């Protein structure tokens, strides 16, 4: 099971993600943004960071690179794709998941543990949980406020994956911090599951997200 980890200039969570993929029992392989052929991979993670310095908007520049065409081809083959933090912003910019992740309500970089509610377990990444489970995973962002102009559609199609459980640290619409596409195979989340992939880190709830590739 080979999982591609996409790297852009400014990506900085790639090695943590690779370690979490190994812990989950799969083989990570780094992929540079200029690669277009991803047919060898069984799944993709777009890790966090500040791709292209977050110039213009977070994720905007990365969303037009050649590797995105490769990701779109994999999605057509129904292979799972997980975007974390900057990766979530990129998936929103491409339009593979609904909505956008924009500047926090209080424009402050928030780095803290956040209890999350698993709103749906129909995605590969949340299948290990029960709907309504509360899990512990940290966030680390200044631009993660979820906004969509069609919240009803997301609810109707069961596309809300994660919500902040106790407080809403960035002002996201309905405390949403993880969404998926209609199929559930493409998932975007602002919290960092790779930072909660081992008990020694404070929680291993995040490891299940990577086990979802298996």
């Amino acid at each position, binding site marked *: 099971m080979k999982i591609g980890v996409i790297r852009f200039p400014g990506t900085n969570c790639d090695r943590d993600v690779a370690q979490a993929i190994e812990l989950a029992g799969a083989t990570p392989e780094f992929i540079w943004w200029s690669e277009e052929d991803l047919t060898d991979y069984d799944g993709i993670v777009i890790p966090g960071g500040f791709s292209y310095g977050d110039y*213009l*908007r977070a994720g*905007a*520049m990365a*969303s*037009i690179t050649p590797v995105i065409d490769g990701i779109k081809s994999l999605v057509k083959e129904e292979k799972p794709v997980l975007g974390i933090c900057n990766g979530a912003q990129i998936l929103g*910019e491409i339009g593979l998941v609904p*909505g*956008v992740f*924009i*500047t*926090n*309500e*209080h*424009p402050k970089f928030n780095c803290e543990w956040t209890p999350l509610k698993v709103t749906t377990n129909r995605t590969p990444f949340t299948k290990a949980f029960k709907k309504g489970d509360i899990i512990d995973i940290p966030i680390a962002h200044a631009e993660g*406020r979820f*906004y*969509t*102009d069609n919240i009803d559609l997301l609810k109707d199609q069961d596309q809300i994956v994660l919500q902040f459980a106790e407080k809403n640290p960035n*002002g996201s619409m309905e405390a949403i911090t993880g969404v998926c596409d209609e199929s559930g195979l493409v998932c975007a989340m602002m919290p960092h599951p790779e930072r909660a992939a081992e008990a020694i880190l404070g929680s291993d709830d995040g490891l299940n997200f990577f086990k979802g590739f298996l």
Partner: protein
Amino acid sequence: MLFNIEVKISLKDGMLNPEATTIERSLELLGYTVSNVKTTDILKFQMEGEDRDEVREAVVDMCERLLCNPVIHNYKITVIPQDYACGCSDCE
């Protein structure tokens, strides 16, 4: 023909703008009472083209594909030929 292009990118009405809110609060600290602060990003560049319509069409394409996110942004495009001068200070 060379054209001067200006693209103004702003958040759609009703969108929360934390940058503008922070500016408003800071002005209050200085003793000014202001309201409805808005911020706009301005991009300026030059581009060769046959005519204004062709250039504008290309810039609309740029806005839709990269410069703006249609979920949250409005944009306004100005295209002026490089040698155009109406005499106002903006054209100098």
